[in-house]
């Protein structure tokens, strides 16, 4: 008897007709697993890891936040090559609040998040009219310019930076705060792209003149997306200031601009979960390769190329597709 493979896309919908799924534990688990796994992972992972990998986890969460922040902007048609601006603004804001005014980290952190968002949005308002590569180039230049300004004017400690920043009260608070923030960003904005509000942002990405023609002020919407994105980025920067107990010119480094883009692209652009997954793959990968020495960057680059060539849609989109597909062998009448 001959057999062939049959594939059902979105099998759960076919099988459940929306109602049945609530009657069966198996189906419910199938639907809930994609939400439960990350939540449980975020809760349990810090407990299982050693001190070194806990630090790596912090870094993963920070880059995941930056990648989410990048993805929200990209979905609204603003390709950014300078996430370091958001990161650095938040980092300096929190550093200044703590160093000069002596604010407690738990007070400085939320204020720096909002202040960073406000300052970045205000700074970028004049260039919101730019599209595509022009916007990206301006974004690339601004953090580099800020580094030189700090160097030349010697404000906020100049090249020395501000050291002796008060850390967060405990290591566990650190871990769960950043994990909580990551979950809040991931699950809070997950549905945004499909909401009517998110559709307007997507529309701006697709065809901004057509959105204008619907009587919508696109600059107002772009500014809102920019504020959401830059606040998320500023939080990650402010958080790192208290982890390193130092803030200085490296916060505007290119790493914070490029790595989030790599994470979002490898993980699956256009989806916040993809951006998170990308960070969870790339940052630990970079740590594992650390032992190799000089050729580390080469290998790292090679992995990036392999991911992008093999799964151009992004790892997350691939997993998502496969998760909802059912394959089985059926007999063919010959």
């Amino acid at each position, binding site marked *: 008897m001959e057999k062939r493979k049959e594939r059902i896309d979105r099998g759960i919908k076919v099988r459940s007709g929306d109602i049945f799924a609530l009657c069966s534990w198996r189906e419910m688990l199938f639907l809930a697993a994609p939400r439960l796994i990350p939540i449980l992972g975020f809760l349990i992972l810090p407990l299982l890891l050693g001190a070194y990998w806990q630090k790596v986890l912090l870094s993963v969460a920070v880059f995941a936040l930056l990648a989410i922040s990048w993805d929200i902007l990209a979905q609204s048609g603003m390709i950014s090559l300078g996430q370091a601006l958001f990161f650095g603004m938040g980092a300096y804001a929190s550093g200044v609040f703590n160093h000069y005014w002596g604010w407690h980290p738990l007070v400085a952190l939320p204020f720096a998040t909002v202040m960073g968002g406000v300052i970045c949005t205000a700074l970028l308002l004049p260039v919101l009219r730019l599209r595509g590569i022009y916007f990206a180039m301006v974004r690339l230049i601004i953090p580099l310019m800020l580094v030189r300004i700090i160097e030349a004017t010697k404000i906020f400690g100049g090249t020395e930076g501000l050291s002796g920043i008060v850390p967060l009260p405990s290591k566990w608070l650190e871990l769960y705060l950043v994990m909580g923030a990551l979950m809040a960003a991931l699950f809070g904005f997950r549905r945004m792209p499909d909401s009517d509000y998110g*559709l*307007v942002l997507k*529309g701006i990405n697709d065809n901004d*003149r057509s959105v*204008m*023609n619907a*009587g*919508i002020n696109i600059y107002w919407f772009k500014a809102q997306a920019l504020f959401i994105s830059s606040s998320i980025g500023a939080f990650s920067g402010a958080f790192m200031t208290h982890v390193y107990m130092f803030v200085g010119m490296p916060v505007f480094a290119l790493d914070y601009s490029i790595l989030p883009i790599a994470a979002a692209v490898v993980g699956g652009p256009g989806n916040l979960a993809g951006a998170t997954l990308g960070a969870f793959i790339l940052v630990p990968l970079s740590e594992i390769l650390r032992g190799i020495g000089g050729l580390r960057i080469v290998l790292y680059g090679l992995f990036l190329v392999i991911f992008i060539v093999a799964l151009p849609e992004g790892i997350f989109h691939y997993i998502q597709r496969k998760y909802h597909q059912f394959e089985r062998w059926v007999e063919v009448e010959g």
Partner: protein
Amino acid sequence: MSSCPLLKVSGLYKNFGGVQAINDLNVELAEGELLGLIGPNGSGKTTAVNLITGFVKPSEGEVFYRSQNIIGWPPYKIVRLGIARTFQMVKPFYRLPAYKNMIIPLYSPRIKQTIGGKYGDRDAVALDLLEEVGFERDAFVAYKSASVLPQGYLKRLELAKVIALQPDLLILDELFSGLSLAEVASIVPIIEKLRQEGKTIIMIEHRLKELFRIADRVVVLNFGEKIAEGKSDEVMQSEAVKKAYLGAEA
């Protein structure tokens, strides 16, 4: 014509570098009128629309809508006043399904309050509007991605996006171009219906035969200047129009 025209364009000039795209354009439009705007390629028809809708700033001149000078206003404010246009080159959101394309005009502040705000409410309105312009509900065309729709549907989508805004003045930029006779025949009733609802319409067209059947009045442009204005058959008798369309020898 009533004493206060709905739209009054007076002394409009626009030059792109050395090219005089619009040269002293004066047009008045009464409420409920259907005005045809015709002319050879490059005569400035689309530029005139871009000037009225704020997408291009004029070099000189004024545009009054209900006695309000709207020159220099950004496009989104002009739309909120009640002037909506289609684009000659259709501008759908290619990444979205057709009915999700409609959500963006339905999200416009102009009509946001009139329909429900909950997630999914707008979808129902969108599907109704699309059915009106000929997206057959049974065939699920409205659920298809805009990137796979044929030109005929894209033009209808463009029209539906404008109708969704419930404007008082619709400017349709070459709605019929690229469509088959059958498709044009199916869109004409939609336009007739809009007229019955009291909408004022400006149509830019190269398909003169179809236009002349429905237009009250026609304005002919050539090299940015108005060379004729009046009833369609009178206009086509004019020497200047024949010259513009057929060349100097005709």
